[in-house]
């Protein structure tokens, strides 16, 4: 693994351990997840026990220790979305993709997550694919949207095999 770009990130934050969250966030942007080697490298360079870096990487919702899909689907389950039918959007996406929340399709095309509130409650229920928002969303439209991002039933079937 190329750790030079991780070193660049560390340098940007002046190897300051109090900036560990921002450092890990940027590493995750780079690799789409937090690879073990990168975590070990960060721990070593910041002179922090690996256990502490691991603790942070697993405490916060934003970090993933597993590779994630090409497209990130986030379904808002904030209170406003909850009362406006957010859970049904999530269930529909789960059913279509054949995965549960916080899982990735076997072909690494989609990762499905729920979020606690995106703060655009007027649009509830909301689903966000990458950076595109789909608001006031009827569950029946979920599949059509996922197709725009290359969903076909094959994403699901691979898993059934």
């Amino acid at each position, binding site marked *: 693994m190329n750790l030079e770009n991780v070193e660049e990130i560390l340098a940007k934050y002046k190897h300051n351990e109090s900036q560990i*969250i921002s450092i890990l966030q940027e590493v995750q942007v780079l690799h789409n997840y937090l690879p073990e080697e990168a975590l070990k490298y960060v721990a070593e360079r910041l002179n922090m026990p690996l256990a502490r870096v691991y603790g942070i990487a697993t405490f*916060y919702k934003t970090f993933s220790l597993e590779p994630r899909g090409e497209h990130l689907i986030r379904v808002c389950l904030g209170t406003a979305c*909850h009362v406006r039918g957010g859970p049904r959007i999530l269930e529909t996406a789960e059913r279509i993709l054949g995965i549960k929340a916080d899982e990735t399709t076997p072909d690494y095309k989609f990762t499905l997550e729920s979020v606690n*509130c995106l703060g655009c*409650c*007027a*649009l509830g229920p909301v689903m966000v694919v990458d950076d595109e928002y789909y608001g006031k969303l009827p*569950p029946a439209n979920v599949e059509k949207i996922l197709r725009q991002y290359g969903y076909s039933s094959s994403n699901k079937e691979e898993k059934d095999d």
Partner: protein
Amino acid sequence: MTKRKLKSPSDLEKLRQEILSKRDPKKSCITLCSGTGCRAYGSEKVVAAFQEEIRKQNLADEVDIRVTGCHGFCEKGPLAVIYPEEICYTEVNTEDVSDIVSQTMREGQIIDRLLYKDPNTGEKIIRESEIPFYKHQTRRIFGNNLKIDPKNIEDYIALDGYSALVRALFELTPEQVIDEVKKANLRGLGGGGFPTGIKWETTRNAPGEPKYVIVNCDEGDPGAYMDRSLMEGNPHSVIEGLIIGAYAIGSHEGFIYVREEYPLAVENTTIALDQARKYGFLGRNILGSGFDFDISIYRGAGAFVSGESSALTSVLEGKVGKPKPKYVHTAVSGLWEKPTNLNNVETWANVPPIINKGADWFASIGTEGSKGTKIFSLVGKVNNTGLVEVPMGMTLREVIYGIGGGIIKGKKFKAVQTGGPSGGCIPESLLDLPVDFDELTKVGSMMGSGGMIVMDEDTCMVDVARYFLSFLREESCGKCVPCREGIKRMLEILTDITEGRGKEGDIELLEEVSEVLRDASLCALGTTAPNPILTTIKYFRDEYEAHIKYKKCPAGVCKELIEYLIDLEQCTGCHRCVVNCPEEAITGEKKKGETYKIDQSKCIKCGVCLDVCKFDAVEVR
């Protein structure tokens, strides 16, 4: 834009005059909301279309475009307001842009189709401030969002920005600043309600150097987004408040902690900090006063509990954001065990007006115990979703019906939830409750950061309690046993009730476990976790009993307790439900409505049939 560093109050005054002299209040200016809500509607494309259209029509010299933060009326976004006439257009999309430029901005004509229509009277309203949603608000803090491009410090300076800082640094001693804030009786608007001036004084007097000041923008309550909108839309007001607080407390280093779900707030705050530094509001010898202060910004990574003050200081130290036991307050021993003052975004934003206009002005509105205004995010099953700033003490009814325009589709109001996962659900019988810190606590809820989630007859209150407990189970840091285990057990009981396995004694058991959490949890996440359960039991006990005794969900929400049925009288046999059912659970012969049937053994209760039916022929029972 002047890039020179301001070295004295008179430099700032000169700059302000220079900015104002270049601005013609009669010049046509279109203000486009570009908060997170409007962006989600596609406002960035609208902004680009305006820039292009104005260039095309050669109007660049005659009209200004101002891209602002959130205006608050999120329901009707994207929003555009044209000054000086204050013409408000709602739900503007790219196709409307050329009409707005050629008809309104060039000719002064009003475009009827884009005006807000009062759903009650059918009347079209032209001026923004005449729209009922805005008319009944008192926008002391949030109002400037409409007048400011958050990426341009000069917009803030033009509105007397940083004049409170000058007054604090050059006319008042730190003690006088604290006295003014104490006299105003400003209380922590993040939910705690602790008197801000007393907190500042404690930090100032606590032994130990250096001292730190922190802006808490870890707005974790789901359904609340006023802090984000202030941080995005008017970051300098928060920064100015923080510098004044730092001066009063004797701190030279400050932090702004922003939740990771708020990228735009991080972006705008970073720009604002750079600009404040360039202009000399941050750094060494601020405006020649001899006072040094600077601010760094930190991003969170998605953990509700990290907004708790002692947990937040752990995050800034590069540790896992878990709360610490509070034998000693953060004000005495916080960040790196030094005296630390932490306030929420809205609290800091209230400081400059208090210093400028005085404690008496601030306290001239509000209730006995809660002064000034509070911004609420009014969301859920309400017609006018948005951000609402009202004097403390306005009743729930005035907020929900007067400003919020009542319940969506004329449904029946059931409850309003305030205070986030630590708050409670307030029933219809208490709609005339004046909203302030103390009244909300009296009825078992709390102010919290200001989320106000409206629920209607289709909301199941047991499911709502289960929702909050499942939220809290995920967010409990697991450090103390009562919270870690108690929430888990209560969630199990609630899940059983919603799935038809509830039994006699469950309600009492929930109450008993709640008491343990209240008494024995380490931080407020645990001690307040029972609130959603206790208030729903208190005000909606019949719903619990319907689930437990009769295995029914009166609101038709809890899947295990409901059935989808076809109303054969309404069914026209259009076949839409059959085509859309993912489980092939519906059968029937086309155009013969009376033949349609749902096979309950196949039905997964996904509700697709209900959504696609155009004839109201699917019922939930």
